[in-house]
Each structure stands twice: as structure tokens, then as C-alpha cells.
């Protein structure tokens, strides 16, 4: 017993020493700030986007949406038990997928446009073929022991999931089996984002940490701290060198991957609502963050200033997305509507 306690104490001491070492290394490169660097950049001025379309059709809270790679179709998920695939140019509904479980929390479009996936409190990620005559269940990925909070396709044969069981997982859709399990978070995983080269992904969790992972090796490569509550939303900056997070602590943060630390925060003393979702414009200059205060606030990513707001929803904005061509923003809300702005 005494020997075990001694070993435990030695390990704890080593942990503390390593943490101190990491903080010192971060401090050593912290020779400037984003605000200092962006002093020379022109301000973006007031960003006033107009509401172009309101998509009506869901009968209950919308929890998630995801753009297709074609920047035209979009899929939304509601706790009315349906996924709806929309043609955003016409506002028409193209496909309705009835869900076995109405408690959906996440939805994803495969890059090919052939498949969509969803999951939630059923702990299962279900993949559907929407090109068939009527939507056909392709796979039920059932191994998580907690809710499915987020899913993203790498291709028609691989998908990543994040779960309330604190793990993320890479699945093989041909076999329906887990390929890699990513363990390191100590709180529910709430969100994930895939890098454009698909070699890495980032996850945000209720342990208030964001982690960068190697997709193939399963290793956690970097950990980012600073938030004081659950991270609900996470996204890559378009260059792939930074990560933006949104949290229940009412702030968003940008972490640079190469400097291994937070470089700027986005907060406002008048903004006391949690961040539910976020998306970036194609240059990365604008951050669209959905909040519990029914609005989507727009931030200048370089200067850390609020530059606009998308108002119009009658309840929490639960999901936000910018399509690949950057031509607009979609917000989805607990008010059951999706809105398109540009």
C-alpha cells in the first residue's frame, strides 16, 4: 500500500512538473498578441447581412444542420423526429428522413452528397442513403455508451463521431465497426471538426478543453485550455493553423496550433449567453457565433470586436453553418426555423 502511494505521489509530482514545463514553454513564445499584430489591418466596419430566406417545415426544436459540399443542399435535424434535406436556392424540401429516435443532436452530410448521418440520445450514429428511391438506413453505428453529440463524414466509407461517453471514434462504414477510438477527454465530447486534409481533427468537450487528434494514430497531439465551462462548438480556421471554440462560459477563443496557445478571445460584458455553435466566413475574418440569447453575433476574428448581429429567431440559435463557397450563413433555432443570410 505504502509503495503504491509513493509511486502515485511521484507520478503526481511528475504531472505537475510537466504542466509547469508546458506553461513555461507557451509563455516563452508569447512575445506578442493578436490585437497588436492586427493593429495595421483595416477594420471590417459594421457587417449587415440580410435575411434572405426562412425555411419552414420542422415542427419542433432544430438541433443541428450541415451544408452539403455543393453549397446548395443542406440537411437539418429536429426533435420532431425528422431530418430534412433542403435545396437552399429554391427553399424546397428534397428529402425527409424519419428517425427511429426523435432525440437527435447531430446531423452530417457526406462530401459525396449520397449519405447523411444523425444521432443523439439513442447513442447510435445512423447513416442513411438519401439517393435511394426512399431514404434507406445503411448502417447503425452502435458502440458509444453515451449520447452522440456530433458526427462528420470523411468519405462514404468513414465517419467520425463525438460522444457524451467522453470518447470520439472513427468508424468503417463498410463493416460498421470502430476503427480507432480517441480517449483523453474527461468530460462529454460536444463537438468535432475535421481538418481539410482529413489527417487531424479537433474536439471540444465539457471538461472545457479542446484537443487536436491524429485521425489514423488515435493520438491526442495537443490540448488547449482556457475556457471555464463546456465547449459546445469548434471549428478550424480556414488556413488549418488555428482553432476557434465557443463555450457555455459565453466566450469564443482562437487557439493557434503552431504557437500551442490561445491568441485571442471574443467576449463582451453585455453578452451573458452561452455559445451554442459557430462558423467562419471563407477568409476566416468573420466568426458567426450562435448564442442562447436567440442571436447569432458576428466577430472580427483578428481584432476581437463584435461587428454585427443576425437577429430574427424567437428562441436559442442552436446551429450555424457557412457553405464551402462562403456565399451565406445558415442559422437553425429552437424556434423550428432555419434562416439564410448574406
Amino acid at each position, binding site marked *: 500500500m505504502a509503495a503504491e502511494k509513493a509511486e502515485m505521489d511521484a507520478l503526481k509530482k511528475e504531472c505537475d512538473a510537466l504542466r509547469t514545463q508546458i506553461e513555461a514553454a507557451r509563455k516563452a513564445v508569447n512575445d506578442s498578441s493578436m490585437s497588436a499584430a492586427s493593429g495595421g489591418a483595416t477594420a471590417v466596419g459594421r457587417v449587415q447581412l440580410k435575411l434572405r430566406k426562412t425555411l419552414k417545415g420542422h415542427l419542433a426544436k432544430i438541433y443541428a444542420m450541415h451544408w452539403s459540399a455543393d453549397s446548395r443542399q443542406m440537411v437539418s435535424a429536429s426533435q420532431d423526429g425528422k431530418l430534412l434535406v433542403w435545396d437552399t436556392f429554391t427553399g424546397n424540401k428534397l428529402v425527409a428522413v424519419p428517425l427511429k429516435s426523435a432525440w437527435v443532436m447531430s446531423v452530417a452530410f457526406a462530401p459525396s452528397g449520397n449519405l447523411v448521418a444523425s444521432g443523439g440520445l439513442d447513442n447510435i450514429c445512423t447513416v442513411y442513403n438519401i439517393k435511394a428511391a426512399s431514404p434507406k438506413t445503411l448502417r447503425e453505428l452502435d458502440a458509444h455508451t453515451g449520447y452522440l453529440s456530433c458526427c462528420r463524414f470523411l468519405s462514404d466509407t468513414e465517419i467520425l463521431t463525438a460522444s457524451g461517453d467522453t470518447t470520439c471514434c472513427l468508424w468503417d462504414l463498410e463493416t460498421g465497426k470502430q476503427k480507432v477510438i480517441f480517449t483523453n477527454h474527461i468530460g462529454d465530447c460536444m463537438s468535432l471538426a475535421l481538418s481539410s486534409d482529413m489527417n487531424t481533427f479537433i474536439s471540444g468537450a465539457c471538461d472545457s478543453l479542446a484537443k487536436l487528434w491524429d485521425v489514423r494514430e488515435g493520438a491526442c497531439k495537443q490540448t488547449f485550455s482556457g475556457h471555464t465551462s463546456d465547449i459546445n462548438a469548434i471549428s478550424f480556421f480556414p488556413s488549418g493553423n488555428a482553432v476557434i471554440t465557443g463555450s457555455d462560459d459565453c466566450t469564443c477563443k482562437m487557439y*493557434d496550433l503552431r504557437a500551442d496557445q490561445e491568441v485571442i478571445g471574443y467576449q463582451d460584458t453585455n453578452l451573458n449567453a452561452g455559445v451554442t455553435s459557430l462558423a467562419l466566413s471563407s477568409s476566416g475574418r468573420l466568426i458567426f457565433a450562435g448564442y442562447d440569447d436567440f442571436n447569432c453575433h458576428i466577430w472580427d476574428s483578428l481584432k476581437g470586436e463584435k461587428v454585427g448581429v443576425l437577429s430574427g429567431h424567437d428562441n436559442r440559435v442552436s446551429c450555424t453553418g457557412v457553405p464551402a463557397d462562403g456565399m451565406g450563413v445558415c442559422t437553425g433555432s429552437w424556434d423550428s426555423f432555419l434562416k439564410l443570410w448574406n
Partner: protein
Amino acid sequence: MSGSTNIIAMKKVVQQLRFEAGINRVKVSQAAADLQQFCLQNAQQDPLLTGMSSSNNPFRPQKVCSFL
């Protein structure tokens, strides 16, 4: 005995921290400059920054043309 599983778990934490401690870090001034440069280089191609005409706007309700 829960003691040894705690030790195994703790060893994993130490291993992870050792790995994270070992990475190379770039100066924040360089990182920030690169992020800023990316934004500025891509600003003209960012439709949400530059705006667009209604004929280019995929979400604008299409006006129907008819021959009178």
C-alpha cells in the same frame, strides 16, 4: 485493487503530458502575422465580406421574367 488501476491511469496522463510538452512552438507574433496575412489575402474572395450583387446571390428570391 483500485490502487493499481489508478497508477496505470496516472502513467497514461504522464505519458500524454510528456508528449505534449515535447512539441515545437512558434512565436505568437509569427503565428498572429500568418493568420492575419491569410485573412487579408483571401478577403477579396470572401463574399460575406465583400458583398454580392443580387444577380449573383444564390439565396435571393428569383424574380420571374415574363414577356408582355
